[in-house]
Structure formats: structure tokens, C-alpha cells
């Protein structure tokens, strides 16, 4: 067991002043919550708003996958399935029982997280490629179930949600207001994942990634830790699924197959395994790249593959490799959240 009250190095001086970091955080929030929606409403094209919405959803997915694949070093090839569990839970609860968004959203996450724990219990003792293969199998099992369990999931026809997102009586019908809902939820989720990765918990996960036997010898309960990380990661994937189901209003099993898992993996790899800013950057890159590369027409998925291949070949650490990302985080963000210097290795 690890001790949450273990002393960390709070006595070291922050690299930058707290004020500057707070300004930077505020600036980022301002961009997400004011500048982007402002630009979108000026442009007035609903299509761009939809792209922004799905980009934010993929940011949550990439962040959650980064926790399990980057920080804990467990290659998960079935992440889209948990995304799908969340989406289907939310959609079916909303259509069959008329539950409101504030109830289906956490339930989508919780059911996906429970599914994650169920998957993790037997598979956590597998390592490296065996774990990847097991998650691939689980992902396909869930996809086959969604596709064929017609009485419940309506099979290939998918599920249509007619009610708009309603939060405490206020209806969010326009695309821009949906953008705000997604943006706020994405900011909160990413903040929670960021705090988790940069806590004692995150450092314990990194130690498991680097050498699990060594971590075990130092008194970390590796299996328990991995199950916790997997549960948290799948919880956020399910949350993203619930948000997607409600914001798009239609889901089908096609959105949750193996290729989707690969897309999420590619985001994390391109951005840099283990670095949260990198993962988010990768998500933005791979969602926006096909939009920028519209001129390429049908070749845009090829471009995604080429970007993934080149980034593995030329930038083995990704665009924001973990070490450089930690440096950047120390310089820019760290002081904003209490000036703790407990990130990474000393």
C-alpha cells in the first residue's frame, strides 16, 4: 500500500511565479470557453461546431487512454468498447426510461467503469502483449454484443435519442450551447485526470510502467493499482461515450469498433505516450487533420496512418514526449495548482 500522506517536495521553489501560471490557465480556459465558441458563432457554420464538439470528446478519450497506456504502460486495444458501453448505457437509459442527462451521464461512466473492473480482474496479471491481446478480444466481444443483441441494443440500426440535453430544467438545443456543455465537462475531466497523473497515484503508476517487479518490491500493490487505473480510465471513456450519445443524438455499433480504438491509440502515440498535453494535442491533430486535409478527399485516413507511422519512426517519444512535457508542465502549469513539484523523477 502507498501512503497518500507521504511527504512530497513542497519545499522546492516553483519555477515560475504562481501569478503567471494562473494567468496561463485562465488564458487557456478563456480560449476554450470564449474565443473558440466566439469564432465558431462568427463563422456561423454549424459543421465547424460539430467538429469542435467531437474534437473535445476525443480529448477526453485520449486523456483517459493516456492514463492507462501512457502512464501505467498497459497497451489497451479495446478502449472504444468502453466508450461504446458508456454511450449505449446513456442512450438506452434515456430512451427507455426517460432519465435526464444529469443521471445518464454519470451512470454511463459508472457502468463503463464497472465493465472495466470486470475486464481487469482476470486480465491484470497478463503483461505487455498478452494484455493488449486480451483487451482486443474484450473489445471485439463488446462490439459483437452491441451488434447482435438486437432486442436490447437494436443491433445495426443504432439508437436514436430524441430528447435534447437538459440540465436542471434548462434545455441545450443549439449546437453552441451543446459545445459549452461538452467544453465544461471536458475541462473538468481533463483536470481530474491531470491531477491524478501528477499525484502520488500517478507516480506509482509510472513506477509500475518502468518496472513492475521493482514497484512490487517497494510495497506497491501492483495489481490493485492497475485495476484502479483501468477503472478510472474506462470511467472517463464511458463518460465521453455518454456525452457523445447525447450531443449527437444517434449511436450505432460502427462507432465503437477496433479501428476506433486504433484511432484513440494513434492520438496518444502521436502526442507522446505518457504525456497528457501530448495526448490532447494528438486528439486535436488527428480529428482536425482530416478536416484540414479535405482536399485530399478519400485519402485523409491514409494521412492519419502516415502521421502515426512517421511519429513512431521519427519521434519515438511523441510530439510532447513525457520528459519534455514534464519540463513544460513544471515551467508553465505546475505552480498554478499549489506549486507541488512531485511530477516525474527527481
Amino acid at each position: 500500500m502507498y501512503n497518500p500522506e507521504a511527504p512530497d517536495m513542497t519545499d522546492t521553489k516553483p519555477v515560475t511565479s504562481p501569478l503567471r501560471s494562473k494567468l496561463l490557465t485562465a488564458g487557456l480556459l478563456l480560449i476554450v470557453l470564449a474565443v473558440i465558441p466566439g469564432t465558431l458563432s462568427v463563422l456561423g457554420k454549424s459543421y465547424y461546431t460539430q467538429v469542435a464538439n467531437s474534437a473535445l470528446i476525443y480529448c477526453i478519450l485520449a486523456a483517459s487512454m493516456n492514463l492507462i497506456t501512457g502512464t501505467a504502460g498497459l497497451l489497451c486495444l479495446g478502449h472504444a468498447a468502453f466508450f461504446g458501453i458508456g454511450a449505449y448505457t446513456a442512450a438506452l437509459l434515456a430512451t427507455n426510461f426517460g432519465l435526464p442527462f444529469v443521471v445518464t451521464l454519470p451512470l454511463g461512466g459508472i457502468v463503463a467503469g464497472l465493465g472495466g473492473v470486470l475486464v481487469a480482474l482476470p486480465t491484470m496479471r497478463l503483461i505487455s502483449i498478452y494484455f493488449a491481446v486480451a483487451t482486443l478480444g474484450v473489445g471485439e466481444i463488446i462490439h459483437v454484443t452491441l451488434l447482435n443483441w438486437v432486442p436490447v441494443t437494436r443491433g445495426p440500426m443504432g439508437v436514436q435519442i430524441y430528447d435534447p440535453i437538459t440540465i436542471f430544467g434548462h434545455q441545450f438545443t443549439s449546437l453552441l450551447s451543446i459545445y459549452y456543455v461538452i467544453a465544461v465537462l471536458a475541462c473538468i475531466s481533463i483536470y481530474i485526470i491531470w491531477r491524478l497523473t501528477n499525484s502520488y497515484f500517478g507516480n506509482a503508476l509510472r513506477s509500475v510502467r518502468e518496472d513492475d517487479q521493482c514497484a512490487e518490491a517497494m510495497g506497491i500493490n501492483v495489481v490493485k493499482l492497475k485495476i484502479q487505473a483501468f477503472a478510472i480510465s474506462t470511467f472517463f471513456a464511458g463518460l465521453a461515450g455518454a456525452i457523445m450519445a447525447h450531443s449527437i443524438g444517434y449511436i450505432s455499433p460502427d462507432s465503437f469498433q477496433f479501428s476506433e480504438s486504433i484511432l484513440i491509440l494513434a492520438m496518444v502515440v502521436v502526442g507522446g505516450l505518457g504525456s497528457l498535453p501530448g495526448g490532447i494535442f494528438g486528439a486535436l491533430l488527428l480529428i482536425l487533420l482530416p478536416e484540414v486535409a479535405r482536399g485530399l478527399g478519400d485519402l485523409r485516413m491514409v494521412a492519419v496512418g502516415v502521421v502515426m507511422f512517421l511519429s513512431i519512426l521519427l519521434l519515438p517519444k511523441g510530439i510532447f514526449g513525457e520528459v519534455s512535457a514534464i519540463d513544460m508542465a513544471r515551467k508553465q502549469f505546475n505552480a498554478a495548482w499549489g506549486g507541488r513539484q512531485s511530477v516525474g523523477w527527481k
Partner: protein
Amino acid sequence: MDTYYLMQIINGLSAGMIYALIAIGFTLIFGVLNVVNFAHGEMYTIGAFGGLVCITALNWPLALVIIAALAAGGLAGIVLERLAFKPFRRFQDEASLKSRAMREATLLSSLAVSIIVKELIQYFFGAEMQSIPTQYLLNDPIPVGPLSFSNGQFLILGSSILMLGGLQYVLYRTRIGLSIRAISNNPLGAKYVGLSVDRTIIATFAVGSMMGGAAGILVGLYYGAIFPSMGFAPSIKAFVAMVMGGLSSIPGAVVCALILGVCEALATDFMAQGWSDMVAYAFLILTLIFFPQGIFGARRERV
């Protein structure tokens, strides 16, 4: 025994042979490089499309088409090795060959190559199923007593057995087979006695991908289904067979592929069409949980 079940078993055996041909490619490459090649399903697709081009553009006879598919698969395997595996083999000592970072880098790079290949094929040929001239389709019925089989099943079974025999000959009677076995047993030792690691790895990729390519065209002509994403499902099944067989044992992979094929064919009797995929995945999960070494486990450290 009921004739229906006998027919289902023959169906399952011919499907299992296809899985076996793909699984051998996986197993050979895993044995030599100790990495999983996720682009192997695309070798199958490339073989099928190579054969399709020979049929539609050149009107070659069937035997030549199969040889062309073999060649296309082998060539694609060599190119794949150059692109996705060679750049990550900068260090050839044993530690790097078995290190986690290297293995995951090649895993991801082969995934990326498989995306690129699949999307390029889709770009050039379109996503829909390709039509095959009827004279090439391999489903003329052949009655055997009260049973009815098709010539495609016999062709698949026969040519697979031929290829398995050829593989045994290559592995155990030729020099390149000897070096493949040497390197899969002890890479560093093989290198020290003067074997060319690069040449052997290329030969492994060529042999493994040839079998994948041949499987692709055989299935394409038998089921009449050639489309860009056709490689995914069979390669996952073959992968399951390989894991069940113990990752680096060729007989294990073949036996498990046949078991898988027969079980799937019999399962269609009890469950709906879509659910029969579940059999393979359930086998995979059960094997991983209860027999992490594989059922016919070659003893290998779980690293």
C-alpha cells in the same frame, strides 16, 4: 453420425485451414523477431487483390492466379519488413530484441502500416465488394455419397496441406529453414556463428506473407468476397489460434486453428450468424486466463 454435422465439420476444417495458413505467418514472425505483426491481415488482403487484378485485367488461369497471389504476398511481406520493422532493429543485442519499448514500437508501426495499406486499397478499388467472374468462383458442387461438398473446399484443404508440407520441407531440409529455426531459438548465438540475421528475417517475412496471400485469394474465390477490410476478421481468428497454440509453436497454431474452425462451424448450429464470432474471442480470453503459456505451450518466459 448425422450427415449435416459431417458437412459442418468439413466446412470448419477448410475454414480452419485458412486460419492456420495465416497463423503460421504470425507464428514464424513471432518466433524469429519476438514481435507481433499487426499488418499480417493486410498481406491476406494484398494476396486477394493481387489475384483479383490477375483475373480481371489479365485473365490468367487459376493456377497462375494463385502463384501470383503467393508472389504478391511475399513481395508485400518484404516491403513491410523494410518499412515497419527494419528501422526499429537498430540494436541487435538480445536485450533490445526482447525489450518492451522495441516490441511496442514495431507493434504500433505495423498497425500504422496496416491502416495505410487498407485505406490505399480502399482508395484504388473502392470499399464495396469486388465482383469475380463466375468461371473463377470455387463453388461447384461435388457430391460424395449422400454429402455435397464444393470444389473450393477441396482446393483449400489440398493446397493448404501442400503448403504446410512445403513449409516443413523449407524449415527442416533447407539452409534458410535451418537459420530461421536457429534465430528463433537463440538470436544472439545464431548471429555469433555467422548467420545473416537480416536475410533470415526477410526470408521469414516472405514465407509467412506468401501463405497469408495465398489464403486471401483462396478465400476470395471460394466465398466470392474480396474487399479492403477482409483481412481483419480472419487475421484476428488466426491470432487467437496462435495465442492458443503457445505463440511460437507451428504445430500448436495449426491444430488450434483447425479446432477453432470446426468449433465455429458447429457453433452456427446453436447461435445466430453474428454471434459465432464470439467463439473465437471466448477461446482467446479463456486461454489467456487459464493457459497463459498456450494449450500446446512452447515453454517461453512470459515477458
